């Protein structure tokens, strides 16, 4: 592979993590950002599931892009997405049953993620397999990153612990504070507050970063 295309791939990968971060920047696929993030382990596995689906969907669509009739492309995209989601769902139920018991509904709802369909339509259906895969990986890692940050924050502040997965069915719970510092952070209301505050934090970094370059008004 030539050096120019590898730089492009790197940009494509980073694009999904930073510039077009699904949650913090595009504000899409927000539901699981709150629903499953009161526990670090669940957050990580949810992120991994999305990463897997996004990458596989991108690869599949890219492989099929020449044989799909443009008129029926949306139904086929939906089928591909829901197919991969179903596979993910079954794999998780089989191999990580304890996580699946908590996040199962939200795994199924990956189907309705606008971001996955959007990447399939905008990128994978027009590009060859390697860039599509990298794009999917980038978007997925960006999502995983966002969920990890949110769930790290929420579990630490809400319960004073961190549940770190050490394998498919094993985990280690680090306890930092014995009492629950601010319990509300693991409750629904606290989830919204936490995500709002983290988003504002990212915005604030953005504003400061941009101000440095731009002329101040």
């Amino acid at each position: 592979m030539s050096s120019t295309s590898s730089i492009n791939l790197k940009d494509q990968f980073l694009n999904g993590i930073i510039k077009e971060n699904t949650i913090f920047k595009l504000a899409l696929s927000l539901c699981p950002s709150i629903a499953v993030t009161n526990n670090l382990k669940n957050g990580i596995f949810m992120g991994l599931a999305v990463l897997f689906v996004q990458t596989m969907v991108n690869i599949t669509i890219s492989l099929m892009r020449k044989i799909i009739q443009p008129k029926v492309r949306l139904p086929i995209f939906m089928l591909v997405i829901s197919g991969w989601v179903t596979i993910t769902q079954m794999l998780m139920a089989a191999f990580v049953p304890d996580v699946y018991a908590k996040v199962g509904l939200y795994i199924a709802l990956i189907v309705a993620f606008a971001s996955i369909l959007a990447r399939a339509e905008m990128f994978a259906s027009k590009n060859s397999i390697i860039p599509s895969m990298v794009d999917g990986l980038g978007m997925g890692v960006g999502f995983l990153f966002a969920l990890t940050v949110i769930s790290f924050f929420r579990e630490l502040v809400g319960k004073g612990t961190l549940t770190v997965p050490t394998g498919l069915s094993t985990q280690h719970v680090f306890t930092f504070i014995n009492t629950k510092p601010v319990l509300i952070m693991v409750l629904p209301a606290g989830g919204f507050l936490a995500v709002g505050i983290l988003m504002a934090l990212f915005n604030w970094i953005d504003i400061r970063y941009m101000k440095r370059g731009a002329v101040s008004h």
Partner: protein
Amino acid sequence: MTGKDIFKITLNLVVVYLIGGFILAFVYANASPKIFRNNEKAEQDALKLLIPGADFKKLGDWTIHDKHAKYFEARKSGETVGYIIQSFGKGYSSYINTFIAVDKDFKVLKINILGHGETPGLGDEIETDTFKNQFAGKDIDHLKVLKTETTEYIQAISGATISTRAVSEDAVKNGVAFLIKTIREGGNNNVQHQQH
């Protein structure tokens, strides 16, 4: 759109759906036994946690609060050592799913909370060992909840009397009462009958 186009589109869709269907069916065929085993294993694990080293035989189903629950017999080397019953208690905001292990004389050995939706920080303390250990050795007459300090009865979790009551006076008491009624008084014959 010509007939050829329509044919091509239809073929396209059919082929894609067929392949998709095959892949899904393949994954399902491989994953579903594992999922089934997971559920079985989860139940066996939950039972083994209550009476370690025993084998369990399902005796039947019963209903409490319109919910279906199961009860089991625990055996060690062919001899009945106790029973385990699943039960539900009506708590603050949820039905508390409880497993109760009793010995042959229907004294509680151990309980476990499988699922609940009680208030975080207050009612969810029914999951703590300090609370659950109170039940060891209690018979049906000593499952009353007191708000004062007690070892003879069950001491209420401060701020969560309703959740405490739901576990001890609803789930556990009704579960044990059901076992006594079905197994000691009349049900016993049935169990022995099955052995022959």
